[in-house]
């Protein structure tokens, strides 16, 4: 296989950048600052490079969806596109002292969408489904292990929930306090396990870089 000069150059750049970004975790140096800036520059360059493609597909093509000139519809239309362009341009209002409030229109549209989507997800998946999942059989006949697990889960859910009560004064009562303290300890166990699993996750990810450095750059084979 023939390897061209450009490919070799690319390999070296990739390796140097890999080492440079890694060095940020150690200490701040000129090298780490250079790699950080290179990262920022190339990451932002992606947005410039994709701009014409996006403009073509999501603005120009939508003026006449399906080749038919329609004023407005769910997939596009010329009035639709004119509005989208206007609202998009309003985002740049923040650079002006006088018209800074223009960006609020774009933002309020965004916040409205975000809040609406978040709320509808929260009711079903977060609230009702999770309550439903706590309906556990605490005394499974002939299966001590499952019963025990279910009791543990049930106690955990209820005591952790009681930890999140803010305005009902009953939680200051010594017994209620014990329950919410238990909840806090159980939360700590959950956090500990999650933290412990983070280590293998990150090692796996960094492994990809090590494999690159050793096998692709230095050409060392196992």
């Amino acid at each position, binding site marked *: 296989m023939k390897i061209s000069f450009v490919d070799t150059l690319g390999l070296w750049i990739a390796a140097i950048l890999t080492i440079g*970004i890694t060095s940020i975790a150690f200490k701040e140096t000129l090298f780490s600052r250079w790699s950080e800036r290179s990262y920022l520059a190339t990451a932002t360059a992606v947005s410039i490079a994709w701009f014409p493609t996006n403009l073509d597909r999501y603005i120009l093509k939508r003026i006449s969806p399906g080749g038919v000139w329609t004023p407005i519809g769910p997939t596009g239309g010329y009035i639709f596109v004119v509005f989208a362009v206007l609202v998009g341009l309003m985002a740049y209002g923040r650079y002006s002292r006088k018209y800074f409030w223009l960006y609020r229109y774009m933002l309020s549209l965004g916040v409205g969408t975000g809040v609406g989507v978040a709320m509808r997800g929260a009711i079903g998946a977060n609230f009702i489904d999770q309550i439903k999942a706590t309906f556990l059989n605490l005394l499974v006949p002939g299966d001590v292990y499952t019963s025990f697990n279910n009791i543990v889960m049930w106690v955990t859910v209820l005591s952790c929930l009681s930890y999140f009560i803010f305005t009902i004064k009953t939680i200051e009562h010594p017994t209620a306090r014990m329950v919410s303290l238990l909840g806090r300890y159980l939360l700590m166990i959950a956090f500990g396990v999650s933290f412990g699993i983070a280590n293998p996750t990150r*090692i796996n990810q960094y492994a990809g870089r090590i494999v690159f450095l050793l096998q692709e750059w230095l050409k060392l084979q196992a």
Partner: protein
Amino acid sequence: MAMRIIRRQLPIAITFLTGMIFLSEWFVTGTVLTSFTTGLSNFVQSVHVFVFAFAAINLTIVHVGRIRRQLRAERRDLTEMLLSGYLLVLMYLVGLVGAYYGHVRMKIPSAVPEYLWWFNNWELPCEATAYAGTLFFVLAAMYRVFKIRSRETAVLVISGIIAMLGTTPLIASSWQGFFQLGEWLDRTIVTAANRAIMIGIGIGTILMGIRTLLAMETGYLGAKEE
């Protein structure tokens, strides 16, 4: 007064309306509301084409400002200035090459070898390493912060170490104890605790949403200027 309505009340009304449309569509799927939300999300997608370009403009303003400040300053930090200039040149070079070849020649940047070279050898290693570099921070936290200071941290630390031992193939392949204990913790306490947090976050999100839609939390608009 008129200005107040245009500047403040109208955005609040828009938030309320969009929020309510998206919320109602969840319950009455398949009516005119659905085509409305589809249209709205397509609209947001179209608007985003412009926000996408925001990043480059923002970066240009920030760094041109930095270079100008350095030029005016008494003691010039030459490295800082050079780094800012380097960043701008690199960004526009890569971006415009990608945009030109990508759009004019192939209609998509990912099909252009010149641009892919930049992407594979600059962007990819940077992002992959920055993301994977989290490893070093987790390691440092393991060593420096994971200390048994109190009863609460003892619980946290010990369960963390059990989980870690369970996911080490060298240990799991010879003795399965930690693996099973970690699995058990994961299936019972962790699942249940996460469930409780999820219920809390769920109800918290709903109430936060209500407060936002009713314009009680208007942090996103900035505080009142009148």
